């Protein structure tokens, strides 16, 4: 006979059976039966945060770094609404996450009961799907479905709202965890259409100036390996989106770096001049394409995506391929290999010639306006934020997991830290959530206790979730926080400089900043303040040294408050239209 369990025990048992190691959460009245069930078992560890938003970002960071589904547990009402920002963050970046929210008792729903919020309703626009548990016996099947939906197809967050009466410790039901899920209305795409793939291969082999535009879907589908193989067999240039840094190794010569609003000159020029774009798991975001009407006018476009709704949403696609990026690229790579074998010497030679010509042009662009990755520390000047990232890269041998917040520091990190592996760069790309960096780093550190985890942040973003320094102490998370402190909301200021005549409306608080060193020390951590470029490298060396192996270290780097992020796309233009430096920026003269 099947085991009889209470709803609370069922829920936790289901998480155990799902292989969950960590739940990130915060207790409250409606979730207390569940919390009691957590107390009475050892397999699933609960991480107690200080604010529910941080719980969602922790689970998110964990999910991005590991590829496994992040799990969050919050209570009803404010617990649930506090989680919304983190759920929306995960939704925009397609991160697998299951959020369990306590709910008031079924009989009280709709009565404006204490701490009641319509969580299914409030979260609806920012979840992949949601469930409300109707009765105790449904719990195992609902949890199974939630994990299945969150992690398959285009991943995303799934909310499970659990009325308190369904977890009542005195009400028991049969517990059997389902081994499989069958839903007639949910069948995510797998293999791509063979004929479309052949068409795409044909187009790739005949292109004069091809480019591969790799998006976050490559990382989600664990398709980095096969992407590398395919790229190298064609010697085709690759550009990674902000979400895909590391999908193709940044230090590889075929890599053009990031594209888009703050992408490299060469990546954006290639996107403008190309005659064939192979987009893989990317969604032609407005921060990439600039003006869609002027986007890559000469290009034929192949688009591989697991979500058909992403195809031809912004830009009309010539060869759509719906499927899992890894499976499609595998099929494509095989087709390319056999096609290359069949080519005559002559055709092959002319193809090599074409690519050589294309690379000659690309390298010229790179030489003209590529980013300078050999910045020198100059003690006489204020610290360039780019130098801080370059130093971080050097000190960590490019091997750290790097999370970031949102703003200039995020762009500098994306430009100057070269990611050679997927899942190492963790940032809120779609929603652009300030306050993401620290809790995300905590989730990564939970997953990889022995690895270096750096959180690149700015003082503005950091202060949005700094209460989590307390959580870091509780769980001994030795994160290294690199705070690019420009005493202002840098990206806001940059836009105000460039588009609002330098009127810095509400973007500065320089006279009321805390002393971060003292602040982190009060939380029981280690703090350094760096104001001179010559101290930058030694301080970072020390922060990452064995001396602080088990300590959280906060490096407060006072950077040049007037630095802007370049290149920057010119609004309304094509991808070729970029401001490259202050001196080329007409608006600022």
């Amino acid at each position, binding site marked *: 006979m099947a085991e009889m369990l209470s709803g609370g025990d069922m829920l936790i048992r289901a998480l155990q059976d799902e292989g969950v190691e960590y739940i990130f959460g915060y207790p409250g009245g409606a979730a207390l039966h569940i919390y009691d069930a957590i107390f009475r078992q050892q397999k699933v560890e609960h991480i107690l945060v200080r604010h529910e938003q941080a719980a969602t970002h922790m689970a998110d960071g964990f999910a991005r770094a590991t590829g496994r589904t992040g799990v969050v547990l919050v209570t009803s009402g404010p617990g649930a609404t506090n989680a919304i920002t983190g759920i929306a963050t995960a939704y925009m970046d397609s991160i697998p996450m299951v959020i369990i929210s306590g709910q008031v008792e079924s009989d009280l729903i709709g009565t404006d009961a204490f701490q009641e919020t319509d969580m299914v309703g409030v979260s609806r*626009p920012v979840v992949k799907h949601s469930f409300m548990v109707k009765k105790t016996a449904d719990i195992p099947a609902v949890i199974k479905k939630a994990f299945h939906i969150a992690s398959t197809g285009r991943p995303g967050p799934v909310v499970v709202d659990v009325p308190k009466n369904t977890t009542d410790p005195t009400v028991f039901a049969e517990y059997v965890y389902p081994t499989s899920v069958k839903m007639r209305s949910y069948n995510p795409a797998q293999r791509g259409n063979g004929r479309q793939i052949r068409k795409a291969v044909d187009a790739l082999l005949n292109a004069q100036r091809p480019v591969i535009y790799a998006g976050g879907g490559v990382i989600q589908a664990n398709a980095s390996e096969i992407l590398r193989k395919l790229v190298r067999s064609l010697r085709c240039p690759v550009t990674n989106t902000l979400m895909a840094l590391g999908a193709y190794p940044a230090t590889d010569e075929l890599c053009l770096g990031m594209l888009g609003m703050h992408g490299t000159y060469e990546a954006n020029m290639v996107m403008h001049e190309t005659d064939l774009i192979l987009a893989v798991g990317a969604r032609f975001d407005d921060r990439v394409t600039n003006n869609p009407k002027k986007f890559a006018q000469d290009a034929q476009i192949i688009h591989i995506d697991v979500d058909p709704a992403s195809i031809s949403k912004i830009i009309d696609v010539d060869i759509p391929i719906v499927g899992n990026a890894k499976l499609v690229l595998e099929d494509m790579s095989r087709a390319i290999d056999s096609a290359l074998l069949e080519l005559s010497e002559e055709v092959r030679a002319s193809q090599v010639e074409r690519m050589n010509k294309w690379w000659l042009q690309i390298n010229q662009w790179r030489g003209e306006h590529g980013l300078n990755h050999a910045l020198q520390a100059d003690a006489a000047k204020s610290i360039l934020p780019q130098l801080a990232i370059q130093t971080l890269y050097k000190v960590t041998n490019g091997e750290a997991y790097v999370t970031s917040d949102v703003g200039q520091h995020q762009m500098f990190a994306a430009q100057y830290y070269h990611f050679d592996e997927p899942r190492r760069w963790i940032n809120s790309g779609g929603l652009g959530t300030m306050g993401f960096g620290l809790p995300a780093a905590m989730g990564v550190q939970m997953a990889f206790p022995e690895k270096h985890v750096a959180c690149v942040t700015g003082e503005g973003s950091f202060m949005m979730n700094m209460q989590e320094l307390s959580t870091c102490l509780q769980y001994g998370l030795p994160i290294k926080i690199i705070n690019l402190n420009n005493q202002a909301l840098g990206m806001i200021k940059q836009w105000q400089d460039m588009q609002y005549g330098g009127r810095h409306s509400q973007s500065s608080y320089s006279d009321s900043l805390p002393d971060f060193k003292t602040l982190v020390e009060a939380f029981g951590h280690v703090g350094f303040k760096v104001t001179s470029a010559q101290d930058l490298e030694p301080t970072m060396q020390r922060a990452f040294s064995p001396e602080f192996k088990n300590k959280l270290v906060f490096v407060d780097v006072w950077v040049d408050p007037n630095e802007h992020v370049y290149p920057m796309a010119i609004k309304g233009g094509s991808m070729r239209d970029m401001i490259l430096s202050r001196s080329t920026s007409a608006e600022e003269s």
Partner: protein
Amino acid sequence: MRRIIAVLLENEAGALSRVVGLFAQRNYNIESLTVAPTEDQTLSRLTITTRGDARTVEQITKQLHKLVEVVKVMDLCEGAHIERELMLVKVKACDATRQEVKRTADIFRGQIVDVTEDKYTVQLVGPSEKLDAFIKALGNMTILEVVRSGVSGVGRGDRVLSV
């Protein structure tokens, strides 16, 4: 461009709100919406009329498909189809206009389903255009109430939307 989209939806609490929410969230327009369970009680059938250019309509069908509870979607306007709408019109019908209302209803094959001394309620079924035409035909007669069901539609012949 006016489109009629038919949707088979899991007949579950909250499923309809996801469909309606999707339209609001993505700035799609709903001209009419009808919904009721099918012969299979686990499924609801929706008919949505909307307007948009080709890209928008393609996005609407794709986004609808993405909803986990949506089982099938069909753009009825992609092929031959039948659309019907039911309308109840309460009209002032006294003295001279009483005959006029009756005659107009007859011409449109409407039925008078409720009668009082000075009012008729006319029931009319047909494509939306016919219903519009009837209202126009009533001209300067006094319309007291118009209730329209919204469009229900089905593909002609072999075009079948089922699981």
